[in-house]
């Protein structure tokens, strides 16, 4: 009997503990949380995870850096053109975001190709044309292989070269929202329309906050 009671107490404590550790979806001030580990600098200020400098090349051979997104929030994802699995489904969800915010110049979009061998600039151009989007708003970029995979890490996205995965790449269909201060503020499962419903609300919220 005693063992049973202490067992129940233990489990209860465990549940309470877990509830405390899991951060709630929103931080205390009602704003979207900032993703990643925090650090404190020697002046006592909190340092958040920040998207590092990058330089890629887009479907029109423009050089795309953090400057391209200066003062704006953006949505990002990783994909490849000859993707037999989830990519088109994820692109259809990206398209929903595009349609919703097409005329809001506070939000841009960038899709990174992880197939640096096949997805050349002309291939990306053809792809963008087929999606029929304004490429000033939504860019498709390629670049140095290692840099693209490092960026995926910085956005907390999985992207791997994997011979066994469909099409030769293993990647998640995650969509990421980055604010104008280069902080990751929200993510969504791009294969799940319901997850993207919530994401649309979060984007709206961030744009109102800024």
């Amino acid at each position, binding site marked *: 009997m005693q063992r049973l009671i202490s067992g129940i107490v233990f489990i209860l404590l465990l549940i309470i503990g877990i509830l405390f550790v899991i951060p709630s979806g929103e931080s205390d001030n009602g704003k979207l949380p900032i993703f990643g580990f925090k650090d404190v600098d020697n002046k006592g200020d909190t340092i958040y995870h920040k998207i590092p400098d990058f330089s890629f090349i887009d479907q029109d051979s423009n050089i795309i850096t953090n400057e391209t997104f200066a003062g704006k929030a953006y949505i990002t994802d990783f994909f490849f053109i000859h993707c*037999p699995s989830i990519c*088109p*489904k994820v*692109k*259809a969800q990206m398209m929903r975001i595009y349609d919703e915010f097409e005329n809001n110049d506070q939000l841009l979009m960038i899709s990174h190709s992880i197939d640096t061998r096949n997805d050349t600039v002309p291939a990306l151009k053809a792809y963008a044309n*087929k999606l*029929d989007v304004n490429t000033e708003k939504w860019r498709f970029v390629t670049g140095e292989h290692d840099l693209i995979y490092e960026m995926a890490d910085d956005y907390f996205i999985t992207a791997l070269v994997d011979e066994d995965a469909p099409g030769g790449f293993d990647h998640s269909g995650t969509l990421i929202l980055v604010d104008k201060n280069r902080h990751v503020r929200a993510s969504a499962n791009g294969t799940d329309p319901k997850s993207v419903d919530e994401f649309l609300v979060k984007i709206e919220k961030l744009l109102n906050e800024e």
Partner: protein
Amino acid sequence: MKSNSLLSDSKVKFIISAVAIIILVFQLSNCSYQPFSQGETLYEYHCANCHMPDGTGLKSLIPPLANSDWLKEHQEELPCLIRKGIKGPLTVNGKVYDTEMAGIEYLNDVQINNVINYINNAWGNEYGDSNVKVVRKALESCNSQ
């Protein structure tokens, strides 16, 4: 069996046949509610990522299957298209598409038949029923390649 046994022979037979009948009835009623349920499952797994769950495709990248005149008019080509893929421009409902579709080689003849029956009859399509014999015949032209 001994006469004092709890279940007599005839009772056992009765129970077994009753269970069999119940299972059969359930099976049949399932079928009549969902005409191409295996085809639907296969579609969701192998095709919906590209052609979308509602068969609408994606902009000029991926052609629709729902209400597609190409699908309606190229029925004999479907088995080979599914197994070997298709390349080069094609026109669906007046719009030109030109993206390669890779073949889905690991679907067997029966599964291909089920997928065809599903896309022919889903989303308001009424493009007729296929059968495995016809599918096998059509596949002869591309199996050797």
